């Protein structure tokens, strides 16, 4: 069962995080349904050409977040009631916000200035949408 995942060296984040994100995306869009068996740690490691220990870490974290469940000897599957779609969007949003804050720092803007910029952009986009 190939995962269709792609791990990129150009992506600055560690491999296990990339794997976690791609698993969550699969679940979020519904490709992987709750209760569905997902590739074993070894299968995924071989598929992605990455170390077993990296996939193991990703799966452990995913289990901690309640996205998947691993049963010893039986493999791993998507957790029942795993609602990740909103969680993924949340994480995306936080990443974007973090980037905005760093950019503001470089420019020397304080928190107030940043928030006023945010209001500007929100207003502009809302105006464009209602056109």
């Amino acid at each position, binding site marked *: 069962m190939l995962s269709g995942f792609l791990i990129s060296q150009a992506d600055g984040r560690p491999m296990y995080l990339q794997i976690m994100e791609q698993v969550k995306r699969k679940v979020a869009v519904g490709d992987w349904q709750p209760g569905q068996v997902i590739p074993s740690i070894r299968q995924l490691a071989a598929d992605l*050409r990455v170390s077993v220990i990296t996939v193991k870490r990703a799966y452990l974290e995913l289990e901690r977040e309640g996205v998947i469940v691993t049963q010893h000897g039986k493999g791993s599957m998507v957790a029942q009631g795993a609602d990740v779609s909103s969680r993924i969007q949340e994480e995306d949003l936080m990443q974007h916000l973090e980037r905005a804050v760093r950019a503001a720092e470089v420019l020397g803007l304080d928190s107030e200035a940043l928030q006023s910029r945010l209001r500007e952009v929100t207003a502009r986009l809302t105006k464009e949408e209602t056109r």
Partner: protein
Amino acid sequence: MNGVAARLTGVGKDYRYFSLDDIHLEIPEGHIVGFIGPNGAGKSTTIRILMGLVHQDRGEVSVLGHRMPAEQVAAKWDIGFASEDMQLYESETLDWHMRFVRSIYEAWDEDYARTLRKRFDLRAEQRIKGMSHGQRTKAMLLLVLARRPRLLLLDEPTTGLDPVARHEVLRELTDVLTEDGRSVLFSSHNTQDVEQISDQITFIDRGRIVESRDKESFLERWRRVRVEVPTGVRLPALAGVIELRQDGRLAVATTNAFAADMPQVYEAMGARVQGVERMTLEEIFVASVQNSREGPGA
């Protein structure tokens, strides 16, 4: 499962200008161990000791349950060894080599060998003489992989290979682990490859093991902390910081023992932490070796 495929305990070997000393190394069964170190650090010697081709002066070597070098013949039935400075017979073809190896090892998988030949883009009727360096490396790996040995000892298996070939080799190496009880140790200058597929990283320098631990915790221990320092203040080096560069008000601390509270420690000194960055294995490698050669803050 979860035994040990090979173990070196207190191994030492003395040459005129170089000594391997106090080597403790374990290859856990079912794992890939990435073996890195500068040129001349002792990687090839260590691998040869594992193969029984070099007899250690001190210490014990056990490979697949066999004591080396005494039981090297028994061990070699299950070991696949390929080295950068190993060559096949120039005057013969790849096919001749395949038939030769097949005549010796019962475990030869002809189907897999054919698949590998296609994946590696090699022609069976081609003489080794007419092959490029990369093709020869791939030919040698084919001969070793097609036997499906329990332990693979590879000295620089991806050196000199184009990106496509490297990708293929990494694929075959990670595939090895899908079978129970098989293990890999490979040495490489390509830290990217090592970082990607190794379960354990063993770092050797000047004949001694510098560090040997699982990859994830290895990478978690190394960070670069960027801080902005108030004017006129010089940061003291904290414990665990192996390199501290300060230029004016900006400083970068490189640490190999990162603790989550390190940023707070700096903040408590009045510095502002601008960022905590992970390091690639290559950066870790260089920082480590430079630190041992020149001392901190060079």
